[in-house]
């Protein structure tokens, strides 16, 4: 872990206005991409005191759902090409969304095409279930993930 921030000057965006979603705006079985987005937009970035939405790491377009096949794809954009926190962001997304859908749904997480220098190897690691599971058992990584998920909204 380097002493200085990897990206010391991130671009911070205003938070998008939130639409109030009522209880009956979706059925229990439907998986709504915007609902998923609501759930993840406030995850705090591992390095900066801003949410993934504020740093444009995530946007509404980040989430795609294929209800028929039961597949969810989350595409995120790290703030810089050599971001070493990509796997932590991936862990945060998975942990936050754990138990959030019907069990047969599959979640794939990728970095936006062209957004990272090691795109292929990063995507491979983000989607290796065994690596993700072992990483979340690592106390240090677990603590980092918990900090990103449970810091109060800024």
């Amino acid at each position, binding site marked *: 872990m380097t002493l200085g921030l990897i990206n010391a000057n991130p671009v911070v965006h205003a938070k998008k206005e939130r639409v109030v979603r009522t209880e009956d705006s979706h059925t229990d079985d439907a998986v709504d991409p915007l609902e998923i987005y609501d759930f993840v937009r406030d995850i705090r970035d591992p390095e900066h005191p801003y949410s993934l939405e504020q740093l444009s790491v995530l946007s509404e377009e980040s989430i795609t759902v294929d209800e028929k096949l039961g597949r969810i794809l989350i595409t995120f954009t790290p703030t810089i090409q050599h971001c070493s926190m990509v796997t932590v962001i991936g862990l945060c997304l998975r942990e936050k969304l754990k138990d959030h859908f019907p*069990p*047969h749904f*599959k979640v794939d997480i990728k970095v936006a095409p062209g957004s990272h220098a090691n795109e292929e190897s990063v995507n*491979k690691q983000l989607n*290796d*279930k*065994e*690596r993700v*599971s*072992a990483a979340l*058992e690592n106390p240090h990584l677990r603590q980092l993930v918990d900090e990103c998920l449970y810091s109060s909204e800024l």
Partner: protein
Amino acid sequence: MNSADENFELREIQRLEGHTDRVWGVAWKPATGVNGVPAVLASCSGDKTVCIWEQSPATGSFQQKAVLEETHTRTVRSCMWSPSGKLLATASFDATTAIWEDVAGDFECISNLEGHENEVKSVSWNASGSLLATCGRDKSVWIWELLPHNEFDCVSVLQGHTQDVKMVQWHPSMDILFSCSYDNTIKVWAEDGDSDDWHCVQTLGESNSGHSSTIWALSFNTNGDKMVSCSDDLTVKVWGADIMRMHSGDGNVPWAHLCTLSGYHDRTIFSVHWSREGIIASGAADDAIRLFVESIDGLVGEPSYKLLLKKEKAHDMDVNAVQWGSTENSLLASASDDGTVKIWQLTSSS
């Protein structure tokens, strides 16, 4: 058996609940499920325990006989019985491999193998039970020797893979070790004479018509002249070697690609297992179990395989492991992220 008129079915016999987290692996105890001896199965889980299940001779249903707990401090990823069935080895993310002995119904941890730097992912006994192999995220493969009084000695630490090693598997009749990895290769390891000097004698990579992504598992046919591997690249591959040459003592018999089964899976395949009757079972991340057999319609000299059946929604979540039991009862065990183990029976109706 391979008549085109026969309809095969994978019938669910039982759903074993007990684990409180995903089940990663299953292992049938050798010499059980035959000759009147009740079938015994071990399952290992993210809940840090191993469950032992035994089939009741009277009812045919499996009951939980024992829980091996309070030893591993993290996920138990893989387990395998020694060929005699006397010992059970369990590999864990806690970086250790535990050896258990059944002492009058109570399982006791009699040894703990340390050495790996981080998660141990697989453990395998050789055919005679004299050697044990382990592998893990530290990219290494370890070979251990079983000494008198259930002591273990590390014989060799094999470096060569450039990434996380997912599984190790000994050849069914020769002391040749196979490993498969996140580095997209299968490596073959053999001993130089009797010198305890083990080294990599072959690497099966993309240039050998190998896989283009992580290889999760491999399995041998009964003869040991064929091997099947499965991968994150959505294919299953069959490999072959000249078994006669192997048995005649030729140390470096190369393995060659025979066949690639593609277009059958659309998510990662985590497990393959070859039955004694020649049926290849696969367990995948689309919650399904598939069975393949050698196709007799193939060109002479070119083995090919066809899908015998696909069991959709075999589990509610990813299937992590499949393993055939003894031939007598045509049972297949499967383990899943849904926290259950299922017992299946392959039946045919002509």
